[in-house]
């Protein structure tokens, strides 16, 4: 059972209060009409699916209902932290740079 902290409610709660909402920070092509089918298909369907650290979205469905970002390891299931989407994005972009 994962124990997740909601950055809005500021409380650690069991996974059952949350619902998983997929990979975080997938950039939508800025002008969809201008990209080719392969680029659009990549955006819609292809995923990083890493074996290791993963930036993902969770929704606090049984609480404040807000969506936020979590950095979690996909083998050990260890959670490095959770942030609002905006705060997480700054960290995520720093990591990617």
């Amino acid at each position: 059972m994962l124990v997740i902290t909601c950055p809005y409610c500021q409380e650690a709660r069991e996974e059952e209060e949350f619902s998983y909402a997929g990979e975080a920070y997938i950039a939508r092509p800025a002008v969809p009409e201008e990209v080719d089918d392969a680029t659009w298909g990549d955006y819609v369907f292809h995923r990083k699916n890493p074996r290791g650290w993963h930036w993902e979205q969770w929704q606090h469905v049984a609480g404040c209902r807000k969506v936020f970002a979590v950095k979690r390891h996909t083998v050990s299931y260890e959670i490095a932290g959770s942030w609002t989407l905006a705060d997480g994005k700054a960290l995520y972009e720093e990591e990617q740079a």
Partner: protein
Amino acid sequence: MANRYSLWSLIKNGLKHHESWQPAWKSPQPKKQYDVIIVGGGGHGLATAYYLAKEHGIKNVAVLEKGYLGGGNTARNTTIIRSNYLWDEAAHLYEHGLKLWEGLSQDLNFNVMFSQRGVMNVGHTLQDMRDIERRANANLLNGVDAVVMTPQEIKDMVPLIDISHRTRYPIMGASFQPRGGVARHDAVAWGFARGASELGVDIIEQCEVTGLIIEGGRIKGVNTSRGDIMADRVGCVAAGNSSVLAKMAGLRLPLESHPLQAFVSESMKPCIDTVVMSNAVHGYVSQSDKGELVIGAGIDSYLGYGQRGSPHVIEHTAAAIIEMFPSFSRVRMNRQWGGIVDVSPDACPIISKTRIKGLYFNCGWGTGGFKATPGSGNVFAHTIAHDDPHPLNSAFSLDRFATGHLIDEHGAAAVAH
């Protein structure tokens, strides 16, 4: 065959106190070069190697497995076999697999204990029943056997099931595929390994692929924990770890790896002689030859490579089973485990060439690939041998995620296994 199994060989070896049986497959040292390398020694990888050697005469083949044979999903699944898929492409592919199952023990001279005890998919709502009627009709048009059953017919076949109106989601009917059933998972891996080894394939365990050697857009070989091994053609059949291998080639796949759990009970007297699956309450159950109830349900929602899931999923599964079989509430569960399944957006596999010449992927079978083991290996071997897909898997290429020609089996194909 060095070690042909028969009644006669059983008697002969019995007289020698069973001390002179030979190992079922050889464990050679890896060579420097092969015609084809298969990455992943699960059922699908071993079947691919077997059919490459048997049907395409390509025998200089290595199967590289990072752990031991059948330590992945092959030996972690709940062994349900059926072919009652909704869409033509999927129905034809899985039916090809089912036909191969029907002759597999004889073909391999290895008892895979394929038991056609039938698979029942029960419906609990009017919409379930409409979907069941539609799917059964689609199946019949594709030459796949299908019957629609009333609650009373279900009860006659499975006396322990609760068809009363006391339940929260009363059972309104079911579809039934008489030719579906179960098989012994380990035996499938061992049988294909033995068959392939006999035809000259090298099966190399404890050999992890850590990199793909690519030059000028062509595959040249693989880096492994036991040194580099060269080949002009490499087929990746790594189930839950497919995205990890794709990354080594700079490719992205439309896959997400999730834990999927299953559990078995203590052994009991025979009480259920078919497979019962429910999409709506989400659980399924069959009884193994040892008498254990074999139970499973849905994936854990999050990405995970940990081969374990969360306990609340077990609780939901148990609740679903008890909803259908109240008498099972006193049965004790013995063991629980998880496997990593590679789920694709349309719940259909990817059996495909890639933009790297000579590199092929067979993945995305998700929660339901065991049933396809022989069929998957058979068409993938064709794809590799001809550098061109078999007619049965041409619709299952990676391109479909750019063209939009998805084969949407999510929800269409009863429960997901």
